[in-house]
């Protein structure tokens, strides 16, 4: 591990001041960052510890939504009665991630910013465009079982590892941030992430020193909710495919659908056209397959992840069957 300077911020304002300087990283739970620092994939010169900031509340908004402090641990958020009652998809996604110990440490804000688990990103002896821009991508013609099938580029095919963020995307979450100049801004989760293109090292629109302070959820959408994660073992593995889904059926037809996907893209994946294709349809495999066709129209496998294309289809159909079961 490379030596670094450490300071602890006692306010968000102090944190962003420190965070704006050179090669600085915020640390909250550290469940991802410390691993990356030990392997010298991340080599910050300064660490600003934000773990003791007073951002631990889950508050009910006036509109019936939620305002979640960025430091709320994943375990606490998953168990929060407001979350389990109104946003079960979020609770289930959180509990599908990592292990009990990690969920106790990992923060809500940090979870959005997990780095990919691409095998080659993790080995500093080999090239990786995300780790060392311009060095190359061994994953494309190497082993890519966990890699993306949508949104990839010539430079990077890494997938985003978060479960929580997939549910957040289905729930139209909004991130509230504080910038070093004191400005606050609200960033829709739909605008947070960037496709890799030829700059896979830049993963979000966050600016240097910009700190996530809260996450806001609009009132829960109408419909039944589910989070289905398919992985290589029953626990403690990243998603091969996951689906966060909220679907409403009224009078025999789908009236609302919100679908986000994990494991298949460089970011939690959501596509309006998939949902539009379902709305107004009679629930059934014909409609579900049509939605999957749209989702996977541009899907591209790289060898060992080819199976994700049929797996994503089958998982989507299973989830839609589950959520429309009584009505189908």
């Amino acid at each position, binding site marked *: *591990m*490379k*030596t670094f300077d450490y300071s602890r911020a006692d306010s968000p304002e102090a944190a962003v001041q420190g965070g704006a300087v050179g090669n600085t990283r915020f640390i909250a739970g550290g469940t991802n960052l410390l691993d990356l620092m*030990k*392997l*010298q994939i991340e080599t910050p010169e300064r660490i600003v510890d934000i773990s003791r900031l007073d951002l631990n509340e889950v508050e009910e908004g006036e509109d019936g939504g939620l305002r979640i402090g960025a430091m709320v641990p994943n375990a606490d958020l998953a168990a929060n009665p407001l979350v389990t009652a109104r946003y079960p998809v979020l609770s289930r996604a959180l509990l599908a991630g990592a292990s009990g110990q990690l969920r106790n440490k990992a923060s809500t804000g940090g979870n959005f910013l997990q780095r990919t*688990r691409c*095998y*080659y990103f*993790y*080995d*500093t*002896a*080999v090239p990786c465009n995300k780790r060392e821009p311009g060095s190359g991508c*061994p994953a494309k*013609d*190497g*082993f890519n079982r*966990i890699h993306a099938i949508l949104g990839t580029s010539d430079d990077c095919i890494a997938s985003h590892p978060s479960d929580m963020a997939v549910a957040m995307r289905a729930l139209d979450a909004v991130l509230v941030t504080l910038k070093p100049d004191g400005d606050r801004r609200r960033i829709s989760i739909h605008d947070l992430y960037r496709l890799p293109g030829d700059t896979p090292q830049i993963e979000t629109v966050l600016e240097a020193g910009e700190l996530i302070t809260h996450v806001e959820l609009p009132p829960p959408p109408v419909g039944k909710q589910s989070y289905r994660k*398919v992985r*290589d*073992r*029953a*626990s*403690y*593995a990243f998603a*091969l*495919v996951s689906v966060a889904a909220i679907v409403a059926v009224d009078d025999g037809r789908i009236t609302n659908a919100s679908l986000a996907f994990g494991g298949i893209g460089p970011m939690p994946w959501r596509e309006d056209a998939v949902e539009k294709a379902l709305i107004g349809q009679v629930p059934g*495999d014909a409609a579900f397959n049509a939605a999957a066709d749209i989702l996977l129209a541009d899907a591209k496998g790289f060898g060992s992840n080819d*199976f994700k294309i*049929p*797996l994503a289809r*089958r*998982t989507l*159909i*299973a989830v839609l069957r589950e959520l429309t079961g009584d009505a189908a």
Partner: protein
Amino acid sequence: MADHTLSSPERLSTLDRAVQRVLGQPIDRTDGPAKVSGDARYSFEIEADNALYGHILTAGIGAGRIDAIDADAARAAPGVVAVLVDDPRLPADAVNSFDKLKSWRLGHDIRFFGQAIGVVVAETQEAARAAARLVDIRYAPQQGRFTPDLSHPDEIEPEGLRPPVKTGDFDAIFAGATFRYDQSYSTPIHFPAAMEPQATLARWEDDELILHSSLQSTGGATKAVGRALDIDPQKVRVIAPFVGGGFGGKTSVGAEAIYAAIAAKHTGRPVKIVQTRRQVAALAHHRAPTRQRVRIATDADGHIRAFGHHAVIAQRDNRSFVEPVHIGTTHLYAGDARLMTVDLARADHPTSGAVRSPGEACGTLAVEVAMDEAAEALGLDPIEFRRRNEPKVSPANGKPFGTRKLIECYEEGARRFGWDQRSAKPASRREGDWWIGHGMAAAIRSNITVEARATVTLEADGSAHIETDMTDIGTGTYTILMQVVAEALGLSPDRVRVSIGDSSLPRSAGSGGSFGASSASSAAALACQEIAGKLAAKLDAEAKDLTLQDGHATARNRRVPLTELLGGEAISAKGHAKPGKHTDAHVSASYGAHFAEVAVNAFTGEVRVRRMTGIFDIGRVLNEKTARSQIVGGIVWGIGSVLHEDGVIDPHSGQFVNPDFGEYHIPTHADSPPIEVHFIEEVDNLANEAGAKGVGELGNSGAGAAVANAIYNACGIRVHDFPITLDKLLSALPEQD
């Protein structure tokens, strides 16, 4: 000294006559509290004044040469004391007592990705690791053999642990048989995956080297260390009272031990090195990938006439270990014509070696699935097929078996599991989104007795002390040796002290090959037998007429407290167990039967093992609890080998793609179902003085095949390339309603 070479099996052993009734009891592990409270100190936690820390430099190419190493920047980095890259003794990976020195002394030749090439020594571990990144290594890469073609081996039937089995005219009998089964299988690389990585503290006292090192043997390791360092093994002391798992990966001496020893000599200070998790994958050995062909020919009634098991395994240059793939198959089923061989393909991979259940783990996975397929093709229940082919003597060499309760294991297992509830027709039971299936398989593990010594002292106060250089790698050695001595000398277990894990103690077999417990227990029992003889003499009695119980000796109608009988003087005796002519006259093995219920998701192909039942014949049960724990752990390994574990090597670079617990998937608790384990106990006095057979590797044998067979029964899909990950089921899953 009480020598015992297995030559008089009819004689009742010391343990058979004993009446204390502590042997076999499910006593909690005596080292448990120290381990869970953190009091137990593992190698890297041993304190040493003024210690330095080393970080091993590893190669970033898979084949080629190092042209130049520039370590100036690393040497100038804060806290760095030395960077060692030129000592010709620096090993490429683990060292042992049987391979040629040139197998690990590779100099600047790179033969596998992650090969050790030097060490940075610094005041802190972090400084050493950070400086390692500053060492500039220039390579001349070559095209490596990273994807060996296991269809075209380089060496035919190389010498290995097990000779080929060739009896009868296999080709003719196979060709002429009524029923023929012929199928190829593959198994991937498996990591030992011990929780504690390889770690060593090395210090020199004059010309004596003291290594606190995480190893499966202590005395046995001194020879390897001596060879690797060009020093007298008598000048090496290895200490390992606690070892956080070995699974075969610590049968060799880790590279870090040799680097630490060299660095400690160079700097004049103690040096600690722990391999990082990612380094362990390449620097410790792995289980070789295999390609296997299983051929079974029967008559119309399902009696096996010919059994073929051929394997090709991968190994790197100059390493001699050959995965003994047919070791379990050799004696398992009938069939006069037998052809069982292992060939070898050379690869530029890290070293392959003995990982828990060498041979059986991968061999039974293929063979026990093959038996299931053959039974189905013959229209026989898999148990009935096995029953018809249960040999009375070894089909390989005609020798008699020791105890073999395999049929009883099938029957008891079937009864407890509810085998009669199974539908023979695949894909006939559905619960919601899940297909439910049942499968079974046999377990076999060769039983080996290895030379072992122990000293037992009956102290004047009536307590006992056993000393042997055995290790406890999480297996229960402390506890079972306590029980053996307590049983043999008629003592309460808390009156027995156990000293192990130090090469200065009498030489044992170490932990490995499932021979540790039985061999060390035999030595302990023999030492106790000699003590009992001396106690009998004090009572003017024959040893056979002496009863030792509750700290008293009884003979000739006299019952005397041991303290009184000892009269203030301790009695010490040395036990020495070694294989004798009975070892060659019999075929000794542990046996069992596995039963599994699985669920296969009809949409996604995910597999969940719902429950397993296993019945086992391990001879005398030394401790019902630790034995059960060994079996349960082995079964979980079996689940890992059939569903999850897959060490992947990149075809272009030769690197391990998934060398950590994040991406090398071993079963989690959620993957491990309720596991019911029972023993059918029959003391095997042909096996050894303790009457116990190996248990550590038995549970792993066949467990994966039972799961694979249950997957077939659930959804009707046979997968022959392990592990059975969901992508291999996806396209063949039955149509949805």
